């Protein structure tokens, strides 16, 4: 029963969606490899092309990779929480004046 609910929670749809998107991007790029290589290696302002491309691919293919591992059941089985760093503030000792008895002769 528990196994079934775990499996249904796995993001198969998202994995397929991002997998197809990633595949489409790769097919598009490699089927136009001549044009891509001609323009992506022109240098100067054209430097934006390869940099932007790797950002797009890393988002789409990265999302696919993440969903793939989730679907395969390889993931963090423990929930990540925001860290609470230990207080490292130093303790400053202040002089504490104490009342003293003074004899006035």
């Amino acid at each position, binding site marked *: 029963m528990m196994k079934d609910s775990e499996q249904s929670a796995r993001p198969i749809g998202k994995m397929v969606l991002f997998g197809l998107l990633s595949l489409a991007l*790769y097919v598009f*790029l*490699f089927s136009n*490899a001549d044009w*891509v*290589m*001609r323009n*992506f*290696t*022109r*240098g*100067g302002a*054209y*430097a*934006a*092309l*390869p*940099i932007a*491309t*790797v*950002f797009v*691919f*890393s988002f789409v*293919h*990265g999302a696919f*990779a*993440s969903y*793939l*591992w989730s679907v395969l059941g*390889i*993931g*963090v*089985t*423990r*929930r*990540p*929480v*925001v*860290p*609470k*760093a*230990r207080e*490292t503030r130093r303790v400053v000792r202040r002089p504490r004046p104490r009342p003293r008895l003074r004899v006035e002769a």
Partner: protein
Amino acid sequence: MDGGVQETIKFIDLNLAAILFLFAVGFIGGLVSGFIGSGGAFVLTPGMMSLGVPGAVAVASNMCHKFPKALVGAYKRYKYGQVDLKLGLVMAGSAAIGVQVGIRIQRWILSTWGQAGSDLYVSMAFVLVLVAVGGYVFRDARKISRQGGEEKRSPLAQRLQKIELPPMIHFKTANVRISFWLTLPVGFATGMLAATIAVGGFIGVPGMIYVIGASSLVASATELVIAFVMGLAGSINWAIHGMIDIRLTLLILAGSLLGVQLGAIGTTMVRQHVIKLVMGTIMLIVAVSRAMAIPDCLVRLNLLSVSPGTLELLSKGSFVSMCIALTVGALMILGAMWKSKVSSAKEEPLAQPGYNGAPSRIESTP
């Protein structure tokens, strides 16, 4: 400039074997990088060159795959609460200075002693740094393993944290309060090494652990931030000169984005000293690999006489041992993950990013 670049650089034709090779090395390299923060890409440059890719294009295409891989890995590990963004950015700033100095030293050696002198300098730096640092990391990991697997802050880091030299910075995730000036040498050395052997993390991660005082988990995750910043800057530089072969970059990325996330997941499944163990092992095997390249440099400088057959054998041995380093690292990670997966049903969470009772960032799913 445009036309000049197009005429002088020859981009290779890709076949199925080359595509599979790039994907596989990308995956294994990504796995190692996601786990120890760096060190996954050092096989790719010589690997691409062995496919016929010109050296500059191999370096540029490799670097262009490194920064998105580091971005994805850093994001994944940030979600697990392992990344100290402030530490990463402070380190990246001083590393950028180190890279510039490292490049100038390289240029001076190249103009004084030629290519052979430059290669000898790189190989010697590889061997000396990796044997010294890698040996120390490996020994420390073994010691922790024998003592039950609990990592403690290094005595050097504890002493340095007591030095009140303004401005003092508090790195929240790393749970460290240290003078800004004491972080500079670590970042600077990381950049210097990155400019020399192209893997700055081999000094950046141990530096953050033993000098600054971060845990292995935080140091290896934070190194990905440094790799992203430095990789992005380097890639823009290469792209402006038209040196990036985007086909090679994307093929490597196809494998490495799968690997880097698996490596990141792996860090949540194992004890912290395993990160040190994997890192130390890889560093020591790579040191052996680079030691095999030294005789060739000495022959070219007329300082040694060795037969061409022996040199060829050493050259092949050097590349093979680099591949072995990466494979051994990947197998150690997968083995540790498998072991953890098998026993995880009964055990408590193992990952403890902080030291000395700092709260664990991973807790059981409700």
